[in-house]
């Protein structure tokens, strides 16, 4: 553990009809820590993610940000706490250009001059400078994902919550995304929900495995990948192939 938790859940649960999607999850992430959430389809990791990002209201339990109860906060209030959220499907401003998208993100928490500097920095670090004037809607899937990550970076969050940042990307794009997430990391705490095990191996430190709405195990990435229970529920033969 690295210091006090920045985000914590206590007994977090969500039922759809009678079916529990997430069932009493106690979770905690330290300041500056990076955590990957993995699990098979239907394990509840996306539902869990939606609850801590204000997209779904929990049936029971609490979400705490630095000790304060933020359960059921509106999305803009979570963002106001400097929590940067990337959804699974890229949510970007298709009709705006790349620079304006980043500017809107930076401007929420910075004065105009500082926002302009931040935007220029990010255009460089995220490798978006060449397409700064292009409309986001005209760009490819990978670029749109990076623009979304760039927008998060522009708002200078203290906690980053990313839902499948490499979904639908080519191998090259995945590597570039891993590098970008590395630069975004710095001293920020981060939760990444991910499907792609190669990518998890690239970035992960500690991994939390979800299974049937509960936390199956929580351990460093190497240990998790060797664990027979994890292999059984999630990786199956695929793990043997990649091992």
């Amino acid at each position, binding site marked *: 553990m690295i210091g006090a938790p920045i985000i914590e859940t206590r007994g977090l649960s969500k039922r759809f009809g009678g079916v529990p999607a997430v069932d009493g999850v106690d979770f905690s992430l330290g300041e500056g820590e990076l955590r990957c959430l993995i699990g098979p389809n239907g394990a509840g990791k996306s539902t869990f993610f939606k609850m801590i990002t204000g997209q779904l209201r929990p049936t029971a339990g609490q979400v705490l940000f630095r000790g304060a109860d933020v359960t059921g906060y509106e999305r803009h209030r979570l963002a106001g706490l400097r929590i940067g959220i990337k959804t699974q499907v890229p949510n970007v401003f*298709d009709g705006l250009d790349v620079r304006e998208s980043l500017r809107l993100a930076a401007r929420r928490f910075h004065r105009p001059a500082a926002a302009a500097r931040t935007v220029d920095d990010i255009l460089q670090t995220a490798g978006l400078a060449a397409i700064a004037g292009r409309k986001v809607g005209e760009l490819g899937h990978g670029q749109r994902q990076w623009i979304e990550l760039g927008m998060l970076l522009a708002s200078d969050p203290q906690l980053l919550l990313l839902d499948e940042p490499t979904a639908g990307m080519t191998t090259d794009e995945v590597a570039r995304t891993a590098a970008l997430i590395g630069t975004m990391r710095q001293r920020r705490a981060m939760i990444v929900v991910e499907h792609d095990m190669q990518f998890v191996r690239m970035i992960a430190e500690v991994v939390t495995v979800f299974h049937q709405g509960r936390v199956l195990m929580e351990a460093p990435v190497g240990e998790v990948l060797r664990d027979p229970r994890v292999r059984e529920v999630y990786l199956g033969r695929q793990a043997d192939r990649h091992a």
Partner: protein
Amino acid sequence: MKLGVSDAGRLALAAAGVAAMIVLPRVVELFTLVELAVFCILAILALSLAFVWGFGGILSFGQSAFFGLGGYAYALAIANIGESTVPILLGILVPMLFAVLLGYFMFYGRISDVYLAVITLTVSLIFYHLINSTSGPDYMIGKARLGGHNGIPGIPPINLPGDPAAQLDIAVVFQVSLATLLLVYFGLRALLASQFGRVLVAIRENELRAELLGYDARRYKLFAFTIGAGIAGLAGVLFATWGSFIGPSVFSIGFSAQIIIWIIIGGLGTLGGAVLGTVLIQYLTTWLGESKIADANLVLGVVFIVFVLLVPNGLVPTARKLMSARRRVGR
């Protein structure tokens, strides 16, 4: 100050507007002037929806309700007060207040876009039936009769502030209407260029992303909706003084739909398109009405269908596209 092409264009537009204000009353017939004044007034109404719908992404099917509220507020207030300054302000404030109330429930209740259109339409129809059923002397507000389906005739014109005797003649009404149109147009331009306007457009583009960046979409939309209602109300005031009459037909479905048609023909997402669409359609309607070549509604229906099929983006966006394509070819 640096002036871009679009700045130069706007300056030219403002200059043309001022020139029209000075020259037209001297050269055109009174009848034409009366007609031009109403085009300006309806264009202001169109601008209010062009802003709310085209930039805020809020399809208000009842924009005419605010127009009607403004007109009625003015008519009832001036009948009681006898001087036009306060009634004009009321004609703007009453629709705004109503928009705050209605908008609060719609936006903070997270009503989806389709239901929002239905609700605004319904509200407009409620006013239509409410006002229609107020015939007879029982329905009085102060000294003024609501008049039911007969409407309120004989509404006094605008006077110079503080001097009820100094009433504006029709040439000045035209000038005031055109000046108001220009002010509303440039005011909305400035608002859209501000941080508020840019966030509003971002919310139209992707509400979830805007909220995840920390902007409260509900507040921005409520503000835009209220501004739109104020502008529509102002148009309603001018309309009531222009014809010295306001009736419940301003709340009818036909009138609500007309505003939407002006905007679709001119081009959604532009302000200039709304003005152009309004003037073209209104001119066509008047001309058909006078020349009796064909039934106006029939022709307008055909025009609308042709536009939806062949120019679905509307006149202004299509013209822009053609011009930028030609520039590229020319190079």
